[in-house]
């Protein structure tokens, strides 16, 4: 049998395989280049970007939990000017599509960033962060209110011709309603889930572990919640869905595809295994080979309920 076809196309972005690296877990790609073949992964999604550099939250910012970790980084990033000057030159040397995750404090800021990113040829697509739960006055309003989400996505849509992905927050009552709002605003794809708001407590100190008190939970612990939400959203919208949440192996990734995801993002796994995205793509290929499946796309939404 010839090699199985792992390629997928997300909103016009051709990926050699469905495995992308989730924003905030892979730096700007360069940090990981010593440990992973960047040419062997589907796409690189860079650290959430804002117009101006952002300091982020005080420390402690992260805490390991059972089967996962909490983070409250607070969207620390270099800002778009430094991104263009310092990070784009390296990304230019990589043929893998680069998707830039970004956020703003107002609809206008989202639109301004989208306009500037639209002009960078190395950027294959944009991922809107409307769901980061850590920053007061940050994205949370947009991520939990369908009307606000609609207006942000619409403004970004009008500011760029590049593919627009919206990353959804799981911290809502009805994620399908959010998905509909984003699809109505002509998002090209939806990625989910971002982190689940959580908390860790230090009994001895009688204090929260994180300086921010709460943080976003990620890692294997969130996978069942993520699978459920991907399944709910994928059957409700026509746009492609990108599955995220605790993916550690090819098996995990393929489960998300069965639930309806056209591609996946690997996040926390990058921290403990810098070659995780590459390994997961290889494991997926091996599964397809062993099971005589010629094309990974056959599995998208193939869940039998």
């Amino acid at each position, binding site marked *: 049998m010839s090699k199985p076809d792992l390629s997928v196309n997300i909103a016009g972005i051709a990926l050699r395989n469905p495995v992308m690296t989730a924003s905030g877990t892979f730096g700007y790609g360069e940090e990981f280049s010593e440990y992973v073949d960047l040419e062997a992964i589907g796409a690189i999604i860079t650290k959430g970007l804002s117009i101006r550099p952002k300091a982020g939250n005080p420390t402690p910012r992260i805490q390991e939990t059972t089967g996962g970790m909490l983070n409250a980084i607070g969207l620390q990033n270099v800002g778009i000017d430094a991104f263009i000057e310092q990070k784009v030159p390296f990304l230019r040397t990589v043929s893998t599509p680069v998707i830039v995750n970004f956020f703003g404090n107002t609809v206008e800021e989202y639109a301004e960033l989208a306009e500037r990113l639209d002009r960078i040829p190395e950027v294959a697509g944009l991922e809107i962060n409307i769901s980061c739960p850590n920053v007061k006055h940050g994205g949370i309003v947009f991520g939990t209110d369908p009307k606000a989400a609609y207006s942000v996505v619409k403004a970004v849509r009008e500011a760029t011709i590049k593919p627009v992905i919206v990353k959804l927050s799981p911290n809502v009552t009805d994620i399908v309603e959010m998905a509909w709002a984003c699809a109505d605003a002509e998002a090209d794809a939806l990625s989910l889930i971002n982190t689940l708001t959580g908390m860790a407590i230090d009994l001895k100190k009688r204090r929260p572990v994180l300086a921010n008190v709460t943080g976003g939970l990620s890692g294997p612990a969130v996978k069942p919640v993520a699978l459920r939400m991907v399944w709910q959203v994928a059957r409700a919208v026509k746009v492609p869905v990108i599955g995220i949440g605790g993916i550690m192996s090819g098996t995990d990734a393929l489960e998300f595809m069965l639930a309806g995801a056209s591609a996946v993002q690997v996040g926390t796994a*990058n921290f403990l295994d810098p070659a995780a995205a590459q390994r997961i793509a290889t494991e997926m290929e091996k599964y397809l080979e062993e099971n005589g499946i010629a094309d990974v796309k056959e599995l998208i939404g193939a869940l039998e309920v």
Partner: protein
Amino acid sequence: MQFRSTIISNQEVSPGYFRMRLTAPPELSGASPGQFIMVRVRDAIDPLLRRPFGIFDVGTIESEFPGLGSATYFEILYKVVGKGTEALSDYHHGDHVDVIAPLGAGFDLGDPAEEKILVGGGVGIAPLYYLARSLVQRSRVRFFLGGRTRDDILCVTEFERLGVETYVATDDGTLGDRGLVTDVMERHIREDGRPKTLYACGPMPMLKAVADIARRTATPCQVSLEAYMACGMGACLGCVVKGKDHSEEAPDYRCVCKDGPVFSFDQLKWV
């Protein structure tokens, strides 16, 4: 680089403190003192994250079988404080762990003509041994070692064997002078006016005291920081510390993993 490492030995050197020797590829001999490693203690999701450890020593051993040449090893010194170190402490000769090393920026060995003063607290002495071994060939080295009680004072003989003058202080006076090691160190370095460089690793209050002495005596000083981190390669931004020019408007956060773990004390904001 990332490699699978075999544990050669894992010895409890004091109650709750272990010294582990592991195999490494020959390239690890090029690691600088002060650099660190990330260990995946178990191929499982609990504990999930790698654990960072300073490099205590790097060396080569001749094979016990003639003709097989030599093998590179490294050592870490750790205190059992949680799930990760608990799991490590159960390992024996022949067990395996996955290692990423060497990481971060190490110590600057400085001018050989100047005396080197090393200050360590508890398990914070780990990177100072490899440093002392590198420094002692070229400079006079004095080592000040502090801890809460005598069980926290590790590897004194090892340092002395290198030819390093070693001074000990404990909070309860069960070994060496009673009191803070930084006070003992300051008394000694004030005795003569010769130029020196300070190197320190240990708990934050100790490092603050050392930085304060460095500032008051206008002595160059490098500190090695410990931090909670997820990745070790500058991506998670969990381990940041404030750089000297940090403000909300103009953030100057430095990653302990990538920009450090060794910093010149005047590059950091201490308040």
